């Protein structure tokens, strides 16, 4: 089946700002996204995982052109997103939407839920008047909210309810593809499970395709068909979810998995505690970007000088590590 979303060689660099009120020397370029490629089949979910600053949110925004990518090709629903002019891009926005992490900051505090949901319907000339009201009531019900919430303002809602409104707003234009940027990270555990279940139901019911961006590998495991792990702007491992969780090939994936706390005091796990912090994406280390923190016993001079290519090391499983055949 052809992919619904196809991303090839995506690059986004942010220019370094000049220090000293714009008069000093310009700082180094931040390579937020550095040659990222993936594809998502219709109705499937790709989990994009990594720590703060790895570039995962920038990927999500760049493929929707909420920020302009510097290079690369993005195809959604057969259309080349990067080449589109303003008008066709706006039309394509009906097909691709985003749900943000912060349900407090992403809803307009001065609009009622009804106004927030009516706006996209009006902009895309989908519905107005009584038809719009009917659609809004149906949308609220679909995301598990009583239609009476249409009168509410964001501050009257709990975090979980706000996130449901954010999802309803994204769904209002009947998109095929949703970027979900940390959609449950700000929610309590019991509410997080409710929203994850809702997202899974909506995906089945509407045959949606998801890019699910998250830092929590345990959450991603429950929703993703494929997983891509990012480190310093690059994908270091990409695989079908069961393969990645059962047998990670990149030492960074292995370390991330081992660092997730497991709610079982009897769990006898070998925890790999990585030394140091993530280096700045303005000054990525030469060679393999992970080499300064890498716990792999075979790490050698090659890791410090030669960047490993992302290559297939098992059927469908790609890893960017010189020692992917001898995983940790």
């Amino acid at each position, binding site marked *: 089946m052809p992919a619904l979303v196809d991303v090839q060689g995506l690059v986004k660099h942010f220019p370094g700002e000049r220090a000293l009120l714009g008069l000093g020397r310009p700082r180094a370029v931040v390579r937020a996204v550095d040659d990222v490629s993936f594809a998502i089949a219709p109705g499937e979910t790709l989990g994009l995982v990594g720590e703060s600053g790895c570039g995962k949110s920038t990927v999500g925004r760049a493929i929707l052109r909420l920020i302009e990518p510097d290079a690369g090709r993005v195809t959604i629903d057969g259309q080349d997103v990067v080449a589109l002019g303003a008008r066709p891009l706006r039309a394509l926005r009906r097909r691709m939407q985003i749900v943000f992490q912060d349900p407090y900051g992403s809803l307009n505090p001065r609009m009622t839920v009804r106004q927030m949901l009516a706006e996209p319907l009006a902009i895309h000339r989908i519905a107005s008047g009584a038809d719009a009201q009917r659609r809004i009531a149906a949308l609220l019900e679909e995301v598990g909210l009583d239609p009476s919430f249409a009168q509410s303002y964001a501050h009257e809602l709990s975090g979980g309810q706000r996130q449901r409104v954010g999802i309803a707003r994204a769904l209002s234009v009947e998109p095929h593809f949703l970027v979900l940027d940390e959609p449950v990270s700000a929610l309590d555990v019991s509410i997080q499970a409710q929203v994850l279940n809702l997202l899974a139901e909506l995906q089945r019911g509407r045959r949606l395709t998801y890019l699910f961006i998250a830092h929590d590998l345990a959450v991603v495991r*429950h929703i993703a068909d494929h997983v891509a792990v990012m480190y310093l702007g690059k994908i270091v491992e990409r695989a079908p979810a069961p393969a990645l969780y059962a047998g990670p090939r990149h030492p960074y994936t292995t370390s991330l998995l081992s660092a*997730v*706390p*497991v709610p079982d005091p009897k769990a006898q796990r070998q*925890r790999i505690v*990585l*030394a140091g912090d993530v280096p700045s994406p303005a000054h990525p280390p030469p060679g393999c970007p992970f080499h300064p923190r890498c716990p792999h016993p075979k790490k050698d001079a090659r890791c410090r000088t030669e960047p490993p290519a992302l290559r297939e090391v098992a059927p469908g499983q790609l890893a960017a590590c010189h020692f992917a055949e001898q995983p940790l």
Partner: protein
Amino acid sequence: MTEPLLRVRDLQTYFVTEQGSGTARAVDGVSFEVQPGETLGIVGESGCGKTVTSLSILRLIPEPPGHIRPGSVIEFEGRNLLTLEPRELRAIRGNQIAMIFQEPMTSLNPVFTVGDQIAEAAIVHQGLSRRVARTRAIDMLRLVGIADPEERVDHYPHQMSGGMRQRVMIGMALVCHPKLLIADEPTTALDVTIQAQILELLDRLQAELGMAVMLITHDLGVVAGSADRVAVMYAGQVVEQAPTAALFARPLHPYTEGLLASVPRLDAPPAREHGRLHSIPGQVPAATAWPDGCRFHPRCPYAWERCRAEMPPLLDAGGGAEPGTHTVRCWLLTEPRRRTPHP
């Protein structure tokens, strides 16, 4: 059992809300003890009262709008902190009881070097000279695993990463060798690989320094790995308290049970293979309007008339070496056969 280091009995911390919409009973009759050298995990979701509990222990509740109600007892080594003079309290706070907060970004003062901030407590509480205190600050930076402490001591917080700032916070808290460290969500703002570093550091320091730790978190995984005993809070109350192994092996309060089942886990098959993640219906009620009876009853799959009418006390679940080891605030303990979910 030895004399507890900290004994909290029937703590009630209330807030008068602005619009006069009532009194928020944020902490409403909480009791627990912390033994010397042990780690007590306090677990709960937003709004359950876990942070207000810890701030009450240090008497850091802003008054007004908050107040700790008469009848509440917080004893540290046998002295009631709630009746101490401000001067006596200051001799304990930051010295024998120290606290680290969730936000390492905002809990450090941006205009002082980290060395000055670590040294301050040693100068105030132990009367060290500036020079000796500076040496002590360097020692603390080394203790918490910061490379080049002699150089880092003169750095400002903005020159450090989130993980390093949290290490500095821990260094500040431990400079006077406290007997009790209150750690409020110490790793929540950190990435998972940095969280692992900080948890390992806390474990090591606790073993080296022999202090007790109150670890406040929403993350059951963090508690499972670090705590000796756990108190689960819901709606301003402790609803279950048990040794860590017993709590995870035999969660008895329906809230604990539901919470454990809702956590997406790496060590179990993913939910999408058999449909849905377990979730607790509804949401935490507002502190100005706790439900009557058992406060969890509107979300509880087992609730019956008694739960709606009558608040259950903490009941002994047995199974421990002595009575009161595992306690649960749930009427199911009196009628265990009702533990079958409603269809």
